[in-house]
């Protein structure tokens, strides 16, 4: 995969994530106790041998930049290649805000041009999985196609009015793409990852922009597939994947990591997920800690009851507090006697002594960053 560069587009619509994406991009959402959504994709790329990763930023990208830094944690800080952070910028022909992925790619044509790789793996950031991308390259290498798109048959990935759905024939060729249908007609959900030669991608971008188009998938690839102007094969991904496209999806994904099989699939020993390191002490359990079925990150101090929950780094659960079915982000505090069920606490939130918050399972309560309840 040395010949492949990765580009991650982080400008997806995020309004379904309510308070969680007020201050950050979906890619920067904290997940699974110590990660951000984008860690999976960047780690997948690095673990597959990709050495050049560009991350296209759109709005709210401060926390994402802060997180990725120089790319050191992913070994992407070399002299050649490495991590490229690509924020929007203003020039004569560039308005600074991308309407879609085509605009974003067009703004970064010079990055594409000067990269040494022959192929591009272009991904959106809101799907989480631990994949080896060499499999998608293998499909491409079999020939007879211009590009390969990754998809899943997992019915849990289908959403009304959201996502791309693929018609794949028996030879693996994609015949149609439907984008955001009310009721998906095809069982194959696109995972928003496409492998294509760099020269062809650059040609498509140039041609698309010249025709006043904005989105690579909707305006260019979809049309060309329908007109048989582009031969795109599908690669079926058969392992676990999750969409971070709603609060419920986010909540379920985090709680799913408490299933030991899911845990071992998402964090296999030979394909670790890398992230920014915080150098915290291991989690500390005190005398009154009662913990079952939970994932707990370093730096936590626990003296209360914890059931079926995910705690991020530096969370404090005081004596006599109870936390059930919750996602509690970095440095939040649950004080003595408080009771939380079906809640998502964003970073540095605090639930004061004896506070009670019980959300319905299907619509967890979201407490914003820095809130004191």
């Amino acid at each position: 995969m040395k010949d492949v560069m990765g580009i991650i587009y982080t400008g997806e619509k995020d309004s379904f994530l309510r308070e969680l994406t007020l201050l950050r991009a979906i890619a920067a959402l904290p997940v699974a106790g110590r990660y951000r959504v984008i860690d999976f994709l960047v780690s997948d790329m690095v673990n597959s041998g990709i050495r050049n990763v560009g991350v296209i930023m759109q709005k709210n990208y401060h926390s994402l930049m802060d997180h990725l830094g120089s790319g050191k944690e992913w070994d992407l800080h070399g002299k050649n290649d490495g991590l490229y952070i690509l924020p929007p910028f203003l020039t004569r022909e560039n308005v600074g805000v991308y309407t879609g992925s085509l605009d974003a790619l067009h703004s970064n044509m010079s990055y594409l041009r000067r990269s040494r790789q022959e192929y591009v793996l272009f991904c959106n950031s809101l799907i989480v999985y631990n994949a080896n991308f060499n499999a998608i390259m293998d499909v491409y290498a079999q020939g007879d196609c211009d590009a390969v798109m990754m998809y899943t048959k997992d019915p849990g990935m289908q959403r009304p009015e959201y996502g791309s759905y693929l018609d794949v024939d028996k030879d693996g060729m994609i015949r149609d793409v439907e984008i955001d249908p009310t009721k998906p007609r095809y069982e194959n959900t696109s995972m928003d990852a496409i492998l294509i030669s760099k020269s062809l991608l650059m040609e498509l971008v140039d041609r698309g922009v010249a025709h006043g188009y904005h989105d690579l998938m909707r305006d260019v690839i979809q049309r060309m597939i329908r007109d048989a102007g582009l031969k795109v094969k599908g690669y079926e991904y058969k392992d676990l994947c999750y969409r971070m496209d709603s609060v419920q999806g986010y909540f379920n994904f985090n709680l799913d990591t408490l299933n030991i099989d899911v845990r071992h699939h998402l964090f296999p020993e030979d394909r670790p997920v890398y992230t920014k390191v915080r150098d915290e002490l291991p989690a500390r359990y005190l005398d009154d800690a009662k913990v079952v079925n939970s994932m707990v990150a370093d730096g936590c101090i626990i003296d209360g009851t914890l059931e079926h929950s995910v705690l991020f780094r530096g969370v404090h659960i005081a004596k006599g507090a109870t936390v059930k079915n919750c996602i509690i982000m970095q440095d939040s505090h649950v004080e003595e006697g408080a009771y939380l069920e079906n809640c998502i606490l964003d970073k540095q939130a605090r639930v004061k002594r004896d506070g009670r918050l019980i959300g319905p399972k299907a619509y967890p309560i979201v407490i914003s960053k820095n809130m004191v309840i």
Partner: protein
Amino acid sequence: MMNKKQCVAMLLAGGQGSRLGILTSDMAKPAIPYGGKYRIIDFPLSNCTNSGIDVVGVLTQYQPQVLNAYIGSGSPWDLDLAHGGVYVLPPYVKGKSGEWYSGTANAIYQNLQFIEQFNTDYVLILSGDHIYKMDYNRMLQFHIQNNADCTIAVREVPWDEASRFGIMNTAEDNSISEFEEKPAKPKSNKASMGVYIFTWEKLRQYLMADAQDPSSANDFGKNIIPAMLGDSQRMFAYDFEGYWKDVGTIESLWEANMDLLSLPMPIDLYDKKWRIYGRNPGMAPHFIAEGGSAKNSLITEGCEVYGRVDHSVLFAGVVVKEGASVIDSVLMPGAVVERGAQVRRAIIAEEAVIGAGSVIGGETGNIAVVGQNVVLPAGSVVKPGEQCSGK
């Protein structure tokens, strides 16, 4: 020549640490895991970087592979620098011959050229044997203010233990009048911590002279310090207060780990202004399963707990299976305790596997040890105080 560095640290990491038994049979003592996610060397390295000392030479000799790989480029400690950083300094061949480091002073002597290239004024000598947080820069300022030739960090030990240490007898201004190694009748309770700052020009002279003396043991404590005292050089004791623990024996290593479980923690490792850095194995947060329990313990990333963990320290990737119990113990990275096994007052070294139903250690007695990579079959027994190397 490099740009000038005010102070260069030299970390003596070549000792075997033979009192740690089978734990150091395959790795040098500074590489021993401590506190759930650290290795001993993280403490002096983090102290250096937090003190603003950004050149650290690490002198290795005994079983250096684990240490070398762990230090790597020095990036976990922000010591991967273009001008300075961490350097691993093993003994090397000179001309037609080569020689091992014959003593602590000789190790520095053999690296004179390394130190000279930084055009430094002061040299800080450290060892990789202790758990402590210390601002070396404050000690350096003390050294400079006193216009000292040598400053030795000391801490007050209980009087009845003073005869086990190297004791500094000092005047009111903290100048050192006498140094006594393990005195029968101590006149002071200020024990040397093995942390020295020398004015480089002065140390250089003494190292050169020491190298010419065939009867010398080439040791700081035995030769260099007494020689400087004999010549009435300006030598001062720098008082250190705070947690300091020698982890040179199985019992003290175990105790130092257990110290982290007491309340309040005697060494504040939560201090954001003085973090202890280490290499991160990059594992998911740990998981406590249905039926598992954890109390009074430190547990880190990658662990999976299906059994009972009480008053113990679990390093990265440890697995405690159903029905197993781990009490008053230290489980180093990757150790696995199979179903129904009981581990009590024990240290289980890296990647060791305790077979189902085994009984390791006991409620009383000395600490039991199971060595690195040892795979114990089901039903094994390792008695208190026993060391099981699997050989």
